[in-house]
């Protein structure tokens, strides 16, 4: 399953953390028409490069799905950045 939500947390001051929830499923919905339009072109380009388009799309999908669960957290004395993909 592809990621559906992303949490971005930023703290610039010691006492306050700004959290932003990004609904990725809306992004996918918005990108879907664009993907459908570009799909034949991508298919053609991959065929020209002699790359199996089905394997390429499968790998791309697996990468997208694999991003789920990624957690990046960097904390400093002055700042804090958090990215978590659900």
């Amino acid at each position: 399953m592809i990621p559906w939500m992303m949490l971005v947390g930023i703290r610039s001051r010691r006492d306050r953390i700004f959290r932003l929830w990004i609904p990725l499923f809306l992004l996918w919905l918005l990108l879907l028409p664009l993907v459908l339009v570009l799909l034949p072109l991508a298919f053609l380009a991959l065929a020209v490069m002699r790359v199996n388009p089905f394997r390429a799309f499968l790998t791309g999908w697996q990468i997208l799905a694999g991003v789920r669960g990624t957690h990046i957290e960097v904390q400093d004395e002055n700042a804090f950045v958090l990215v978590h993909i659900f």
Partner: protein
Amino acid sequence: MNEDRRQILEMLSTGKITTDEAERLLAALDKGPAASTAGEASATGTKAQPKYLRVVVQDEQGKNGRGHTQVNVRVPMQLLRAGVRLASLIPAPALVHANEAMHEQGIQLDLSQLKPENLEDLVNQLSDLTVDVDDDHTKVRVFCE
């Protein structure tokens, strides 16, 4: 009656071993196959596959000599698997250039020999990976969980 059991009884009959010793040997024979079967099962048994590759960096002393820095990165193994599969999609002409570039850098690796099944094994081997770097003020840990 198998050969081992016969030998033990012969040793007992010729007086080379006592009845206690014979009993112990026979008991060991009975336990042997079961124990070895269990050992094989535990050796070949599938251990829990790790789900994430974790990188933790702890710097007790910040850049300006005070405070501390912490980095905590968790990468799903699924992403690594999918990432390495990309290598099998590299077109043949590009592989030649990539191989040449790596040979120039002293890396003796032939990318054309990388097959999806090998890549899967490569990622699976990461489950046993643990890297610990301890400095006076900095600790770096890379492990799978």
